[in-house]
């Protein structure tokens, strides 16, 4: 979006009408019809932990408040449970909007968020998927713990699961690994 479209208002926040258009276009959701009934936030199981609950995220989109929306921790905490989406009286798929904000935040700022560990987990998950075509829980968890500097913290649990037969050390994989790699390469060339 062009910087010239950004307007600073009296309380210091920056308004960018291009952001509203971008989210409307990416989601196809009728975000402008939200009338702040709060039904989404009242039913949101994660609202107690959220800095920007779903109704407020929708408001930020309406107002073009890109920075405030994309800096929110809540877009990473949202569990994509769809409680909000099926209850909105205006049929806005709010979970879809949250998901879109998450991807926009990732594209513009990568893991520069207090919830960086969640970004890392998703990245490692996709890494495993790209390599094997399937996800190997044991390796994924070990790599995540290592990355976040908490290796061995969950070792007791890991060992227990191993002996229960719930974890395998042999990676499962697809036969056509080339095709999976190709899908990843092509998808990375396509923006968003």
């Amino acid at each position, binding site marked *: 979006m062009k910087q010239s479209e950004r307007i600073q208002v009296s309380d210091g926040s920056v308004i960018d009408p291009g952001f509203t258009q971008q989210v409307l276009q990416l989601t196809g959701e009728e975000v402008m019809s939200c009338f702040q009934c709060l039904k989404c936030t009242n039913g949101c199981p994660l609202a107690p932990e959220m800095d920007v609950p779903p109704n407020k995220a929708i408001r930020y989109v309406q107002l073009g408040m890109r920075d405030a929306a994309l800096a929110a921790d809540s877009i990473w905490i949202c569990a994509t449970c769809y409680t909000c989406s099926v209850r909105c009286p205006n049929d806005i798929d709010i979970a879809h909007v949250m998901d879109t904000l998450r991807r926009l935040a990732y594209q513009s700022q990568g893991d520069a968020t207090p919830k960086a560990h969640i970004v890392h*987990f998703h990245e490692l998950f996709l890494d495993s998927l790209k390599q094997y075509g399937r996800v190997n829980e044991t390796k994924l968890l070990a790599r995540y713990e290592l990355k976040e500097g908490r290796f061995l913290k969950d070792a007791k649990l890991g060992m227990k699961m191993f002996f229960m037969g719930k974890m395998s050390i042999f990676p499962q994989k697809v036969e056509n690994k080339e095709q999976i790699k190709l899908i990843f390469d092509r998808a990375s060339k396509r923006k968003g």
Partner: protein
Amino acid sequence: MGLQIGYFPGCSLHSSAKEYNDSIKASFGDLGVELREVPDWNCCGATAAHSLNEALALALPARNLAIAEREGLPLFAPCSACYHRFLLANRKLRESEELLLEVNELISPLDYKGGTEVKNILELLVEDVGLKKVKERVTHPLKGLRLVSYYGCLLSRVPHGRAADDTENPVYMDMVVEALGAEAVPWPSKMDCCGASLNITEEAIVCRLSSHILDNAQAVQAQAVVTSCTLCQMNLDLMQSGTKPAYNHPANLPVFYISELLAMAMGHSFPAAHWKKHFINPRELLEKMGLIQS
């Protein structure tokens, strides 16, 4: 004869949720459902793909949908989370020719035409097999067992449309539980969120959410929880496991997959090693209720 179905086990049914896979395989054949594993299936992309990259969130399910279409089979995803990813991706691809074209470029030489139906385990049992047939096959009814059906989020919350089952008060799982001879106890948490994949990254949140669900199961004096989602099963079972100080919920309630109960009611007996895959081992309860021999 019978129903041929493209079986998509997904990653967890091959590792942390093997008992789900085993019990589906033990029960579906006798119901006339022939499970044909989707050849060389890949991971649906889960939360990671839709969080970081929309193209992958569509292309990864699309590859499996295209393979199932080539085989002429509907796609059955037992894990509720996989099911939901397939359902949403499929709908988007069917709604827009332009998008379908774009995604087909990502998965070429495969070419998806939009013809694959996606099914979850309850739709399959209630709508395709039919409860009449399920009841006919029950040889060992689960008499006296008080169960709470835990649907979780993703079986029936379908944005912009309706799932087959009710969105706010789904009943298919209760119907299956009762067809198996057990009691489906009404309770307030059947649709509450367990926190899903946040269990790795935001432990405190998952403890709060999952503990609340277990509290409510205890409050109605349920003897066990039934689910169809691998994340739900894991979180509720783990919370009671005592493997970490935070995982100390005292409910002591086994968390079954619906197919484990189905197989048992149809006379299948699982070896002890099967039940050991549960943190709260159901054997004690099943013995007490006279449903398995000690």
